[in-house]
């Protein structure tokens, strides 16, 4: 028997010049379809087949994070003029509604679709954000997810963080102020997972002596080509036992990590996963007494939740927290649990908000992240 699963919500998107538009969204599958009110009526009683149509609908789905990890994750086209209108008979309508899981025939088959993905091209299962993203990049865009990652965060020369995205507006803007306040000449900083060295260079700008460490030769090549005075870079397989042995004990005032710890909780690839305790005990060893571990991570709750509602009164739908099947950030208890187990004390937690100038660049992203922080920064110290 066909039914509308309880995971479906209807979101009004009508405007005076484009009336009668709704978005039907399955919040678990993150799929959606644009529908008119006659389709709402059909969904209200699927057993009543008298209305044969035609039914006005719109293709509006897009993998919106294509524009960047911090782009609107709501998965539908915001510009109503870009909605692609179709007229369907009843059979075509039901086929489309089923394809988007707005209507399901077999509830147990529908549930089993949420089992783990087997590989990046596995379309039988939904997979988490990274897996869906990888599939989209490979199949739809024919491009490598790692290439995309570089482009969406960094300027084409890869020397700095793009300021036209929330990366620049929230993360880089916060760190510029934070480093200016806390970093001083002579401070010894280790940037673990430094990538192309953007934040290592930023720290050096305030006089810090920075060692950037990354497992990727490709990223380190860029980092070395753009190295600011006071920085040096080394390749080490962060997170594997013994990988950081070349770094002397009690040698750093600050260990800095950005957008990296989540991968110890939600793996990028199947197979054996790195042990976060190996990493954290290395960080404890490297830190001087009284030193600080600064961890910048996507927010445990709000990262990748849909941006809904009025521009200036946003709301979101949190459909998972402790057990994430789509999200890729650990809940606070897992993250802080791992840190306290390793002997760290949380001294401060910052939930980041966007810089003021960003409202003109991305109003919805600005308003949403004013209310629902997309990043969190923790200051941690080894317990005595």
């Amino acid at each position, binding site marked *: 028997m066909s039914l509308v699963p309880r995971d479906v919500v209807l979101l009004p998107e009508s405007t005076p010049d484009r009336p009668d538009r709704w978005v039907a969204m399955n919040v678990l599958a993150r799929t959606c379809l644009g529908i008119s009110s006659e389709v709402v009526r059909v969904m209200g009683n699927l057993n009543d087949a008298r209305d044969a149509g035609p039914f006005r609908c719109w293709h509006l789905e897009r993998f919106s994070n294509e524009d960047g990890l911090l782009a609107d994750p709501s998965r539908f086209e915001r510009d109503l003029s870009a909605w692609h209108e179709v007229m369907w008979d009843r059979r075509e309508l039901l086929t489309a509604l089923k394809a988007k899981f707005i209507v399901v025939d077999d509830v147990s088959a529908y549930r089993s679709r949420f089992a783990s993905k087997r590989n990046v091209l596995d379309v039988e299962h939904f997979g988490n954000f990274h897996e869906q993203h990888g599939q989209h990049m490979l199949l739809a865009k024919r491009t490598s*997810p790692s290439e995309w990652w570089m482009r969406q965060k960094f300027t084409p020369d890869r020397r700095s963080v793009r300021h036209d995205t929330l990366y620049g507006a929230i993360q880089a803007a916060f760190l510029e102020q934070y480093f200016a306040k806390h970093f001083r000449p002579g401070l010894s900083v280790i940037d673990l997972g430094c990538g192309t060295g953007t934040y290592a260079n930023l720290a050096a700008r305030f006089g810090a002596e920075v060692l950037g460490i990354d497992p990727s030769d490709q990223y380190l090549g860029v980092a070395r080509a753009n190295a600011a005075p006071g920085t040096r870079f080394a390749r080490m397989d962060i997170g594997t036992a013994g990988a950081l042995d070349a770094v002397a004990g009690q040698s750093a005032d600050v260990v800095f990590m950005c957008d990296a710890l989540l991968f110890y909780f939600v793996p990028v690839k199947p197979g054996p996963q790195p042990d976060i305790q190996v990493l954290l005990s290395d960080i404890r060893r490297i830190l001087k007494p009284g030193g600080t571990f600064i961890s910048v991570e996507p927010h445990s709750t709000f990262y990748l939740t849909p941006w809904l509602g009025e521009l200036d009164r946003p709301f979101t739908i949190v459909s998972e927290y402790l057990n994430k099947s789509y999200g890729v950030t650990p809940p606070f208890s897992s993250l802080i649990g791992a840190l306290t187990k390793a002997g760290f004390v949380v001294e401060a937690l910052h939930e980041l908000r966007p810089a003021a100038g960003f409202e003109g660049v991305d109003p919805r992203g600005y308003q949403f992240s004013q209310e629902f922080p997309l990043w969190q920064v923790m200051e941690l110290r080894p317990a005595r």
Partner: protein
Amino acid sequence: MDTTECILDFFSRSARMPLRRDAEANLLDLRYLDEGVLDSLGLVTMIAEFESAFKISFSADELQSPEFQTIGGLIEIVDRLRVSQR
């Protein structure tokens, strides 16, 4: 250019782990995606390389088919496309 030879050659060059060419029958059954033989960059490279070498174009349906997920199935898809897209 022989499809099988060319595809097996790609895998022996690009695999993240050594593949045994002598056990070819097993190799054809290898679920190279599930086994993590190629990373995502390797997959993009593979698609581009085969499309260029064989002058074919994979559709999204072919890329998502179960057949695409084994080396043997991949060879069959390429052989089919080489005929139909000639």
